[in-house]
């Protein structure tokens, strides 16, 4: 009965044969666990589609109501908190997995002939994934999201000639307002996913067309004249059907990814909502989600004269390098002959990690929460010193300077300042300021200045 139906279905549509064809296409037997990251990225994407559709049934994409609808989803809707968690950690998984997949393909030289277009479609999918991650973070429409839109517009504004227009396009007007969120919603749920589906289809079709790349072998360079024949010969000699001989690894790893995401969604839960999306609330501390935190650090640490280069030119260069990678499409694939490929990946990962840790600490941000120095830290009961310590906090010195481990990290630690500066030098620095330090000449009376210097002079 079922068999008859399938025969009929195949006769009228061809889908049974096609599916079988796709599932049983031969793959090199030696393809191992390194080959699971592409399918895992796709599984993470499908997780996003499914959870995203569910969330969209309750989310209200209006600048004034989205926040309340998010609270409803998180606090009242059945399983809403879990779904938000799945969607958040699913997004994180997708970003991580596509990163590993790109690195794997690059290190193994799998982008070489005839798979250049596999790489190009994949590169576009990487960019789309980042665009989805950014727009998705904004849909969590709280105070941080509002300021993220403004920061994004300010960055776009650095583009020569079209910057102002781009910024207006991002804000959907003069300022953040009623028109801003629904546009991001439309891009995040319709436009970008539609492009992803299109490109994933193309990407998978190319994978079927060319077959997955065989693990690279030293001394077996890619030659356009012979590669296809050699690959066909390899499959004849040592090929196995994709399903189930290779697919079981994808299934096991994909299921593990989904399980970890579900576990994190339960144990850690979705990121909390910040203050309401009210641009007039100035007690803000905008930080991007973890996957862009490193870039937040880049923006803070770039010297002023290089900012346009870093904001505009660097992404363009990155995009160009990504798109031009498969120009070098022949020769050795083995990383032993292309050690720089591994070095490039390690370098990118370490640079991102270093900036990520810097972004986590954000030493450049003033410590607005710094508490007044404790009497034990001050350690001296003379009036001038005690007053100076109090002023050190009140006048905002402590926002940027730490003493005894308390205070900001923007400026030098002043725990032992008296051992390197004389009181006269301190007076000069405080009144005139210095590189990255404001001049306090107009905001301190002579008595206040004397008290602060008296306090600092005891720090040795």
């Amino acid at each position, binding site marked *: 009965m079922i068999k008859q139906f399938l025969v009929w279905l195949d006769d009228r549509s061809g889908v049974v044969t096609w599916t079988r064809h796709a599932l*049983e296409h031969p793959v090199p037997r030696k393809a191992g666990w390194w080959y699971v990251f592409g399918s895992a990225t796709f599984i993470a994407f499908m997780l996003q589609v499914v959870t995203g559709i569910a969330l969209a049934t309750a989310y209200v994409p209006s600048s004034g109501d989205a926040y309340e609808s998010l609270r409803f989803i998180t606090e009242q809707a059945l399983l809403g908190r879990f779904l938000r968690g799945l969607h958040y950690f699913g997004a994180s998984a997708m970003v991580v997995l596509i990163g590993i997949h790109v690195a794997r393909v690059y290190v193994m030289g799998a982008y070489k002939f005839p798979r250049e277009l596999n790489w190009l479609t994949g590169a576009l999918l990487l960019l789309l994934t980042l665009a989805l991650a950014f727009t998705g973070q904004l849909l969590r429409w709280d105070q941080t999201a509002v*300021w993220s839109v403004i920061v994004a517009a300010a960055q776009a504004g650095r583009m020569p000639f079209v910057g*102002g227009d781009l910024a207006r396009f991002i804000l959907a007007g003069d300022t953040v307002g009623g028109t801003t969120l629904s546009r991001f919603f439309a891009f995040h749920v319709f436009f970008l996913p539609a492009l992803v589906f299109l490109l994933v289809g193309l990407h998978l079709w190319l994978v079927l067309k060319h077959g997955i790349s065989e693990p690279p072998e030293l001394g077996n360079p890619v030659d356009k004249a012979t590669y296809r024949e050699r690959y066909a010969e390899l499959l*004849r000699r040592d090929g196995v059907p994709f399903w189930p001989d290779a697919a079981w690894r994808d299934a096991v790893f994909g299921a593990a990814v989904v399980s970890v995401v579900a576990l994190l969604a339960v144990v850690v839960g979705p990121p909390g909502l910040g203050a309401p999306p009210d641009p007039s609330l*100035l007690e803000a501390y905008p930080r991007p989600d973890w996957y862009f935190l490193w870039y937040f650090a880049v923006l*803070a640490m770039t010297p002023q004269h290089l900012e346009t280069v870093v904001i505009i030119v660097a992404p363009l260069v990155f995009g160009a390098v990504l798109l031009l990678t498969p120009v070098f499409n022949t020769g050795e694939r083995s990383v032993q002959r292309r050690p720089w490929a591994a070095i490039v990946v390690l370098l990118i990962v370490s640079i991102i990690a270093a900036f990520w840790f810097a972004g986590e600490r954000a030493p450049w941000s003033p410590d607005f929460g710094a508490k007044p120095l404790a009497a034990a830290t001050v350690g001296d009961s003379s009036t001038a010193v005690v007053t100076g310590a109090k002023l050190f906090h009140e*006048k905002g010195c402590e926002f940027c300077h730490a003493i005894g481990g308390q205070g900001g990290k923007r400026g030098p630690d002043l725990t032992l300042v008296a051992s390197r500066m004389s009181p006269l030098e301190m007076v000069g620095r405080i009144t005139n300021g210095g590189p990255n330090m*404001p001049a306090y000449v107009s905001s301190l009376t002579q008595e206040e200045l004397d008290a602060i210097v008296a306090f600092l002079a005891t720090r040795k």
Partner: protein
Amino acid sequence: MPLVAGAGYVGRAGFGPRAFLISLTERRMDRPASPEPASPTPTPAADDPRTLERRRFLSRLSIAVSSVAAALVGVPVIGFLISPLTQRSPRQWRPVGSVDQFRIGETVSVTFEDASPLPWSGVSARTAAWLRRENESTFTAFSVNCTHLGCPVRWFAEPKLFLCPCHGGVYNADGSVAAGPPPKALGRYPTRVRSGQVEILTSPIPIT
């Protein structure tokens, strides 16, 4: 498209992974895209110049009418999407409080609605400014947006500084840059006093 044309492979090589494998690799052995089988009954007049001429005309006609249809839909859609670039909302004077509620020399944050709040904008239509009463009748309103990348600066009265929470920008009381990455001074809103009310002229978020 050899992969999609699976029916042929069933007929030639039968079912099953092994047969499938053979069929696929065979395909790989010949040209990557094997030519479609020729039409069983070629149109007799296929190479007739008038037929060719007619086909050329029909192709062009099809492409032309499709382009017109696509433009009919596409142009309005794109126009709608880029409307923020073509539509400018008029700037509005917004009251932020009576003159005597501000003390001379003090800098406080004031809140007002942006130029074109929509019914569903909610709190997102609000904007803040740092307002300082300079003397009896003059007010200065600083934009809250850091000129580096737009984060909201905060005023601290004791050190008389505006500090940015994002990347460490610092501004003096007059809005000039004191430290950090900002490339220029804080922006200002035009202010005026009308019948005892301080008013601020709404302005676009300053983009450096």
